[in-house]
């Protein structure tokens, strides 16, 4: 056991914990977060995805000792009480069925759009390829990513107008 300090969604936490513990269990069981979920424990499905340093990361296979930067979870992407455009697109497109995997779908999509605000269909498919859904909402997820990209683009253009004004 050792003291591990983790910054998650803007807050720092110090925990007395075995540093080899996968991040997922700390997030869920010690910090009470519900976004990242256990799906396979093998890094194969994406249900546990969090964002670290802008990278969609599988928290089920990430030992907490290796986490050196802030962790963002599904709970941390809404800003000032407003859903992230990806989350809003998910509601507008009515994406989820059971919804269990959607943490991974949303966080992976956000990491994609953070890097590439206007991905092509192929780029979307490839970026999302390893994020599995067993209700098979892929078609709607892809529509929602395009919708979110449009929303982000229009937010961006509004912002630049404000700057100009």
């Amino acid at each position, binding site marked *: 056991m050792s003291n591990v300090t983790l910054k998650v969604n803007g807050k720092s936490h110090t925990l007395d914990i*075995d540093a080899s*513990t*996968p991040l997922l*269990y700390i997030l*869920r*069981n010690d910090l*009470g*977060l*519900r*976004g990242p*979920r*256990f*799906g*396979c*424990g*093998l890094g*194969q*499905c994406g*249900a546990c995805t969090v964002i670290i340093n802008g990278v969609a990361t599988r928290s089920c296979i990430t030992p907490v000792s290796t986490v050196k930067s802030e962790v963002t*979870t*599904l*709970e941390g992407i*809404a800003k000032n009480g407003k*859903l992230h455009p990806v*989350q809003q697109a*998910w*509601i507008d497109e*009515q*994406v*989820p*069925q*059971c*919804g*269990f*995997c*959607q*943490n991974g779908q*949303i966080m992976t999509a956000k990491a994609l759009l953070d890097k590439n605000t206007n991905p092509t*269909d192929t780029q*979307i*498919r*490839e970026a*999302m*390829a*390893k*994020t*599995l*859904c*067993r*209700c*098979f*909402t*892929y*078609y*709607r*997820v*892809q529509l929602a990513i395009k919708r979110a990209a449009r929303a982000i683009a229009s937010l961006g253009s509004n912002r630049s107008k404000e700057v100009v004004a």
Partner: protein
Amino acid sequence: MSGANSNPTRSASAIARSLKEGRSHQKTNAFTNIPKQVEEVLEKWNTATSRRNFLKSSGLLVVSFSAAPLVSTAAAEAAAAAQAAGGPYPDPDFHQLDSWIVIHEDNTAAFYVGKTDLGQGTGTAFRQMMSDELDIPFDKTTCIMGTTNLTVDQGGSGGSDAIQVDGWPMRRVAAEARRILLDMASKRFGVPVDDLTVNDGVITVKADPTKKITYGELIGGKKFNVALTAANNNIDNTTGVAKVKPVQQLNMVGKSPQRDDIPRKVDGSGTWAVDVKLPGMVHARNVKPPVAGAKLISIDESSVRNIPGLVKVVSKGNYVAVVCEREEHAIQAARQLKVNWEKPATAAFPTSDDLFKFMRNATPTSKRQPNVVGNPDAALASAAKVVEAEYEMPFQGHTAISPAHALADPSNGQMTIYSNDMKSYGLRNGVSQFLEIPRDRVRVIWMDGPQAYGRTAADDAGFEAAFLAKEIGRPVRVQWMRNEETAWDTKGPAFTFKVRGALDTQGNLVALDFNARAADYNHLGYNEADTVLIAQLMGRRRAMPAPGNSDIPSDMYAIPNRRMVAEVVSLPTIWETPLRTGNLRDPNGPQVTFAAESFIDEMAAAAEADPLQFRMKLLNASTTDDNGFRRARSIAVLKTAAETFGWDTRPSPKRPGNGTILPGRGVAYTYRGQTVLAVIAEVEVNRKTGHVWVKRLVCAHDCGLIINPEALRRSVEGGMLHSLSRALYEEVKFDGEKVTSVDWITHPTLTHLDAPAKIDVLLVNGDPNPNRPDLPHYGAGEASLKPTIAAVANAIYDATGVRLRRVPFRNARVLEALKAAGV
């Protein structure tokens, strides 16, 4: 096509109009002022407690019901007293209106129903149906589902029956509540009911609109105390005196308010069954036998002595679990525990490669009475052309995205189980029997969870958690690991098919001889105390295994001579085996329809006929129909799908060109109950790799009266892609003693790379009289699984001229078939 012309089939555009254009896509307030989760809803009108403060102080999410909700009149007082002491938990009495509907002082309503919403939006649909009958604004309602001591027992979910069957008593009780409220207002104002109007939960005197009163003012927080009747004491028959509204007076039905479960699923605010934490809770992991039928000889507990927070190693019979304070330590302990197992002397089952040979050679354990029309043998003997084919479908699993899980709390001598099991009432009953705890001392709180498309391992996990909680005396959370889930989850049965068909000289299909054989002996029911896995491993088994099921095609084709035989065979080992079968989303439909509709295509090809026209001809060959107009509606869906797809009428296959990518299209049609549908798939087959991409899917779907078109579309899309995953990838592999499909590498599934570029779901109302006052609503949760595999197989044939008769169509198999055919 004369038969089709006489039927009220309608073009896609007419159908789109019929869906009340302008009313779909309507957004409703997210209803944030009345939360959805059961405990939060209860908190709203439980003045006795401030759970939120309790949550703040504990710093952990804690779910508890600390005061009684106003549920049933008969049980309310008893429940109030009992819950203070943590039980017992009697059933809400479905003969009481108060068990179904509670109206609050703020003129909002809560509907208590005995179903579970697995992510298809049934909860939202129930609110639409019930708010229409009650005449209260949709966004002032909430729906509480599947908690055994709070909601009436409608059995939970299954069989795509939520809207079709359970929607009726819900509508009738809501209509009855409206009638009672009008009666109350009539007395209040001293005018006859006929002189009152009701709109949005406000009753007004027609002659004097200043005289009005809300439902909340009339009855808010009080009980109706109205008894309902139910013929044969069957909850499905529950009714009051009031009649439901004719379809023309329904307002929310047919609109598409957004699903109320979605916001909590995208912002992380929902509390799922995996999320619940209780004070003193411990974590358990199972240690499964390494091979089917292995016998536990001994456990070396010293092998886990170094695990921090080890609470206990539990074993009984061949059931073994470890329990630890922390989850990651339970996982570690389960991996590390040394168990000495004795393998059985003989192989438990054939290998997956030998499965179909084994099944064909097996003696059936049961056989349905053959369904015979005409004289198929004579017709086959005298036919101009006879075609024979065999088809094979492997075992396919649920393979839920989250492994099975449950949390059981044994506090106060009760047993409370937090579970996503779609049949929460069955879980309650089963655990009560299994642990010999009185039924009213067990309750199941249904919560969101991973997909529950049939009999999943959620049943097993619920029993395991309850057993361990009783053993340990603390709340126990059980979670299966990925390898357990993929290997040991219940499977949809494997099938072999043997089919013969005969054409006359004009190319008419005059005989069909269809034999379906399923490896389904000892088919598991839901939550049975003598078939759940933990019971089997403890040696508790029923004397007579369930005979299992096979099935015959579902179509309205007029074929003068038919024989359809459905048989079941058994694997050598039926107990304590990972190859245990249970319902998987339309239990046998995807398998049977794959064979049946592939074969119809083979007959069309033999007749050198267009496959769609060949089907139309078979539907039009008779003019008789059933009382649900299933034949007329079958024609309507095929026509609609073809029009939207832009079907080019010609025989299959298309002559493959020289390019790498071979395009093709295929159709399949079937029905499920009274829901009829046709699917057209457009594929691209890569000649060099064997890869199949289903570029486009069109589904024309008629499930009668539609409650929520947009939610229905997504459910149909999901169903088609689920079936596409089964068509292209899914197969449970096994050697002679264990399942070797244990993760997402060894059990591949559909991914984002496979998503079609375009999906059209056309909601057809092919009823000859769509304005019928009581137009029924049929089920829609599973039908779209049925025809999709065949549509894809038929499209591959159209593209390549190669007929794939063995699922799944993974690259290697397709490539091999292309090479063998010289394509």
